[in-house]
């Protein structure tokens, strides 16, 4: 399984703060496995992606395997 952590308003769009999806997942596979309203906004540049706590420079190159954690990060509102 792959854990997908949804932050900020993306958690609302995903309907939960985290989801479990089957491995492996690339960017297209991830979007296909997520609720459509969430998948629809993920390509927006201001939504960032981290894999196992490391920000991806190019989220389209995502390659996640068994046990990995993907975080979907909308723009921060700050502290």
């Amino acid at each position, binding site marked *: 399984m792959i854990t997908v952590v949804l932050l900020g308003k993306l958690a609302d769009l995903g309907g939960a703060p985290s989801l479990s999806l089957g491995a492996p997942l690339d960017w297209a596979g991830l979007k296909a496995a997520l609720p459509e309203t969430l998948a629809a906004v993920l390509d927006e540049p201001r939504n960032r992606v981290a894999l196992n706590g490391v920000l991806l420079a190019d989220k389209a190159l995502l390659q996640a395997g068994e046990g990995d954690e993907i975080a979907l990060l*909308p723009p921060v*509102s*700050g502290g």
Partner: protein
Amino acid sequence: MMRDIRLLDAPFNPGALVGPFTNANPGLGGVCTFVGEVRPDAAVEALELTHYEPLTLPGMHALADRAFDRFDLMGLLMVHRVGLMHPGEPIVCVSAAALHRRDAIDAVDFCMDHLKSAAWFWKRERRAGAWHWIEPRAQDATDLARWQG
């Protein structure tokens, strides 16, 4: 070098942190401290701050590294609340100890501008029973630009 960087998920008393922090930096010339509180707003019932542990705390440490690089500091305290908060509760406390006041004051200013705009926090407010996510403010970007170049 005193360095204390923390995320707290329960209310805290800034004075109880700043006193020991000051005492832990003998020989200092000055200590500057900023404490931010959840502002009362007739419409806002509660505030919730979400973080993503693998990014948020390392991000605060990276910010502290930059502050130590940029200013001549003896110590830095940076404490931020996460979770559910109510108006009047402290949300952030940054304290910098230095030989000279300019370094202490500027370091606090620098850390606050970065925490308020670039730190990995997502904020939402509950108004009339419904939660609303807070978007970044234009002023935050302006504040941040002061430190560039």
